[in-house]
């Protein structure tokens, strides 16, 4: 007898969803009044370009995407994350989450543990940080231990990391002083269009899936405009389900600092939405969502964070492809799939993340690739099709080159409605996509607006 086959919505990672958002402005103002100092959030810069803004981490923490993390990590917890990928509580977590500031700023603030610091964003009160500990880090050491080395992580690290890797650069350019403690958002930001309609924090996404009657939901991670290969991946991976294919396909776009040449985030979220608006995967079965995070491109490590975000959002399954959240030759191209298939002992996983204590309730769907085969006359799965020399791989870079040359992508590569969305945002932001001007302007504007909140003490 097989027993129960139906899969139910997983619990949040760590047991409960973090919600550290004050929704009553009067209460928020009171908390701001009680602060001993104020700090205007600054982006992390590399060669004068913004590569990370800690506000995105504060949003994702306080709205529960990163549950059970509640703030900037204490030194003991940072060590545990770097050594074992575990929080102090023992729950699995991949990345250091730190509120870093410069020595000069720390001196100016004059704060000590026990103080409450007001964090301002775009000139308005945004959040508070209840300082529990102040310590310093060696950013290079944190960086190296975060991503791993060829010597210490030989299962998956192939080439030493360097500054061509955006995640490496983010951590390397952290400030040396860390304020550790819990964040609370005291002035709830408003997501700006078009991001507002893709904003489904975990509590809201779980409600939405309940409303839709979805119990099995598979996540598709994205940082790209979808081509037809992505669409085939989503549709086919979703067949896993339990006694029937997954009820829903959740696309979750990572929104944050990107590289010059990548598609603008606005085009990414709207083009995924277009897949369902144009009926290729109907809206009853498909939902485009987002999470704020400056991607670290940490392949297996990043896949762990993706698993946590999506479990918190209520997903039961997660697609992991070749080179998942990867960039460059640093990790083995199957590193994320290795983690989810058998574990990576040197990263603290003698077994996969779903099989370790205080791990994830997430079923991986490790997929090879989908390519176009003229012999099969369809987009087909690489493990099925044997027409070597005939099949053609999809490549995001190739498609971007195609678009730049002014060639209308054939429908076998990209849906015409999806391409129209790319052109819509091309008209607004210019070329190359994510050009220097776009990235600089975007950093000023961010994805949110903050209501005006008067705090006379910090005028």
């Amino acid at each position, binding site marked *: 007898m097989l027993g129960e086959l139906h899969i139910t919505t997983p619990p949040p990672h760590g047991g409960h969803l973090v919600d550290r958002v004050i929704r009553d402005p009067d209460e928020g103002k009171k908390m701001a009044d009680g602060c001993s100092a104020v700090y205007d959030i600054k982006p992390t810069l590399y060669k004068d370009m913004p590569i990370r803004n800690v506000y995105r981490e504060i949003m994702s923490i306080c709205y529960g995407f990163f549950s059970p993390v509640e703030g900037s990590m204490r030194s003991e917890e940072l060590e545990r994350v770097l050594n074992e990928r575990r929080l102090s509580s023992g729950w699995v977590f991949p990345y250091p989450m730190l509120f870093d500031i410069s020595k000069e700023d720390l001196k100016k603030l004059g704060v000590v543990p026990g103080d409450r610091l007001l964090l301002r964003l775009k000139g308005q009160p945004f959040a508070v940080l209840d300082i529990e500990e102040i310590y310093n880090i060696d950013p290079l050491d944190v960086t190296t231990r975060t991503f791993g080395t060829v010597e210490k992580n030989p299962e998956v690290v192939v080439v030493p990391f360097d500054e061509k890797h955006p995640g490496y650069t983010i951590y390397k350019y952290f400030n040396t002083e860390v304020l550790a403690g819990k964040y609370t958002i005291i002035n709830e930001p408003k997501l700006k269009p078009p991001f507002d309609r893709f904003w489904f924090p975990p509590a809201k996404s779980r409600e939405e899936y309940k409303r839709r009657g979805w119990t099995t939901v598979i996540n598709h991670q994205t940082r790209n405009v979808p081509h037809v290969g992505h669409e085939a991946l989503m549709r086919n991976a979703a067949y896993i389900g339990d006694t029937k294919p997954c009820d829903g396909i959740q696309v979750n776009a990572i929104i944050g600092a990107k590289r010059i040449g990548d598609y603008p985030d606005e085009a990414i979220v709207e083009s995924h939405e277009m897949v369902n608006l144009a009926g290729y995967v109907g809206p009853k079965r498909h939902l485009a969502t987002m999470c704020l995070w400056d991607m670290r491109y940490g392949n297996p490590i990043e896949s762990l964070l993706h698993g946590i975000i999506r479990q918190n959002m209520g997903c039961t399954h997660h697609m992991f492809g070749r080179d998942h959240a990867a960039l460059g030759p640093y990790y083995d191209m199957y590193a994320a799939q290795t983690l989810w298939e058998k574990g990576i002992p040197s990263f603290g996983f003698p077994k996969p993340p779903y099989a370790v204590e205080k791990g994830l309730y997430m079923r991986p769907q490790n997929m090879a690739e989908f390519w*176009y085969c003229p012999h099969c006359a369809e987009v087909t799965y690489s493990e099925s099709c044997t027409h070597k020399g005939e099949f053609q791989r999809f*490549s995001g870079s190739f498609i971007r080159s195609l678009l730049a040359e002014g060639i209308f992508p054939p*429908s076998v590569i990209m849906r015409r409605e999806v391409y*129209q969305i790319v052109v819509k945002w*091309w008209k607004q932001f210019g*070329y190359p996509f994510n*050009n220097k001007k776009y990235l600089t302007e975007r950093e000023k504007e961010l994805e949110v607006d903050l209501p005006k909140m008067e705090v006379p003490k910090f005028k």
Partner: protein
Amino acid sequence: MNYLSVLLDAKRLSDLKGSPLEGKVTDMFGGALKALVMEVPEELAGKIIDNLPGARLDARFFIEEVPIAFKRALFEKIKTMKSIGTEVIDAVFADLPKIKELAAKESESLPVPDIDISEALALQKK
């Protein structure tokens, strides 16, 4: 081995008509696109990536996202030299400062495709 593809529209295809390169035109995606595919040894691929802003190697080992100025110059050299060998790339590299200068202006000079996007906008409104 790495690769570099030069996409061929109707104009470029007609430029190749009658030349020995005509037989080297490759079908991509079941004939939806036509291209010339050049083999690029790794060392030369590294030189291209190091010298051209934005250039990267994709999962297929193709060098992509090179400046359009480079692709245009490459096609012109292919046409005149009637070859898709590495000597064509060397010849293009002889004009590297000019290509870099043109590439720097691409953000201002590449026009937005003139296509009707009303279908997608109507779907969004709905």
